[in-house]
């Protein structure tokens, strides 16, 4: 039983990180129908910003987090403007290939700038784990879950109640109708990239703290798993990304705990295949036909 709850807690920890990252995939997909494969690398950039802010500049965690969010948001907007916007009316495959190109560009630029060797991320919340009976709950886990939860609630509030959020929903449903309402579609897309990237940066920092390191290719694995989470929950559906993130985190953690670490990735990726075969619209996705 203790083992079960312990794995559940671990699952919530990684799951909330995957959920944060999955939100970026799903928001961008919802609004421009693009799988932004560079999203994983944006979280890598966010992690590096956090790393330098904590080590070179000695900033407190909150400020490091803020710096990473702001710079990643700007990067996300810039990528959209330079790489994706010119392709808005091109066949989707063009934008997809461009996204892969942007991903490789970011990875290799960071390798060139900072080397391929992992750097050690400082243990920000290095205090004694909380002991509850036989359970060990590291403070980092609690902070990760709370911070992710706060980000998700914040996002939900933005989308539901602000003008920007309504514009995002309008554009993702029908960008022409949104234009007729007076909504600036390009600016709304840009803001979506910014928010998705900022959430990705939070995920990237939490991930790098959890695994104690940053390196240029660190975005790939969590990026792919978060992508699976987004597809599992229903790509384009925001609560789906959150749900998918927690499910993937749970599956990974239980596989590691009960089966073997080596199986975890294989099982997570076979979920992708199963979803694509049996329910491509995902758990919360609607089976409605796609509008053109």
């Amino acid at each position: 039983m203790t083992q079960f709850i312990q794995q559940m807690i671990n699952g919530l920890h990684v799951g909330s990180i995957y959920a944060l990252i999955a939100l970026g995939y799903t928001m961008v997909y919802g609004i421009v129908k693009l799988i932004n494969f560079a999203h994983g690398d944006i979280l890598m950039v966010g992690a590096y910003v956090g790393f330098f802010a904590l080590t070179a500049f000695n900033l407190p965690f909150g400020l490091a987090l803020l710096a990473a969010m702001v710079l990643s948001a700007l990067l996300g907007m810039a990528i959209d403007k330079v790489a994706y916007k010119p392709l808005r009316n091109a066949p989707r495959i063009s934008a997809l290939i461009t996204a892969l190109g942007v991903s490789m560009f970011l990875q290799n630029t960071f390798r060139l700038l900072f080397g391929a060797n992992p750097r050690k991320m400082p243990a920000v919340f290095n205090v004694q784990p909380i002991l509850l009976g036989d359970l060990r709950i590291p403070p980092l886990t609690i902070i990760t879950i709370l911070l992710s939860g706060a980000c998700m609630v914040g996002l939900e509030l933005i989308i539901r109640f602000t003008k920007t959020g309504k514009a995002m929903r309008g554009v993702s449903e029908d960008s022409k109708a949104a234009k007729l309402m007076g909504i600036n579609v390009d600016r709304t897309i840009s803001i979506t990239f910014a928010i998705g990237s900022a959430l990705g940066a939070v995920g990237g920092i939490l991930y790098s703290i959890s695994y104690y390191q940053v390196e240029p290719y660190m975005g790939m694995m969590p990026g792919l798993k978060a992508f699976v989470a987004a597809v599992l929950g229903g790509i384009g559906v925001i609560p789906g990304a959150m749900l998918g993130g927690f499910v993937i985190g749970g599956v990974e953690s239980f596989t590691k705990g009960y089966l073997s670490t080596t199986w975890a990735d294989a099982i997570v990726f076979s979920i992708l295949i199963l979803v694509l075969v049996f329910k491509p619209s995902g758990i919360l996705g609607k089976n409605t036909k796609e509008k053109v």
Partner: protein
Amino acid sequence: MLKVEGLHVYYGAIHALKDISFEVREKEIVTLIGANGAGKTTTLHAVSGLLSPKAGSIRLDGHDLMKTPAEKIVGLGLAQVPEGRRVFARMSVHENLMMGAYLRKDKAAVEADLERMYGKFPRLRERSKQLAGTMSGGEQQMLAIARALMSKPKLLLMDEPSMGLAPILVDEIFKIIQEINEMGTTVLLVEQNAHKALAIAHRAYVLETGKVLMEGDAKTLLDDERVKHAYLG
């Protein structure tokens, strides 16, 4: 108030509008009629800025709409009820109406207009919390009209508002269009239901394969032999 001259629109190699000119004057109902594919929707999209014409000019009260991005045009007092309604299916009725008022800053007046819409369309009030996508075609059409009116337009473009509706609802829609006009809103109405459109319009233009074939007083066109033959069955 709206003056379109020498408009040419292409979809790739397809020349969809070939030198279209027409005019809508203050307080009028003007209708564009024509068969499928005549270019009616294309014309409205060009006016609303949803596509960029190759040549021509579109002016609204002295503003050059060809140089105005689509999202700025509604701010100049021009709203559109698009073909196929295009309500935001995953938003509630109330949210859809508020989307219509997206650019307005006069909160109190927006609330008053919302009340007016609910007064005019009681069905929308009953369903204000319902998702727009789950409403019937007629209800969605009412919503699309009310949403457009929430922007307080001086000129309202309507693209086949009677399409796909039961006859009794069609009559109701045409009555509503007349009421909207009587309240002071100018209307540019695109219709395939030429008979009904000509009956409420002041003036009309007949489009065929991207050209203006005939124009004139609506009552005159209603009696015209060629119009009768081609569009009134």
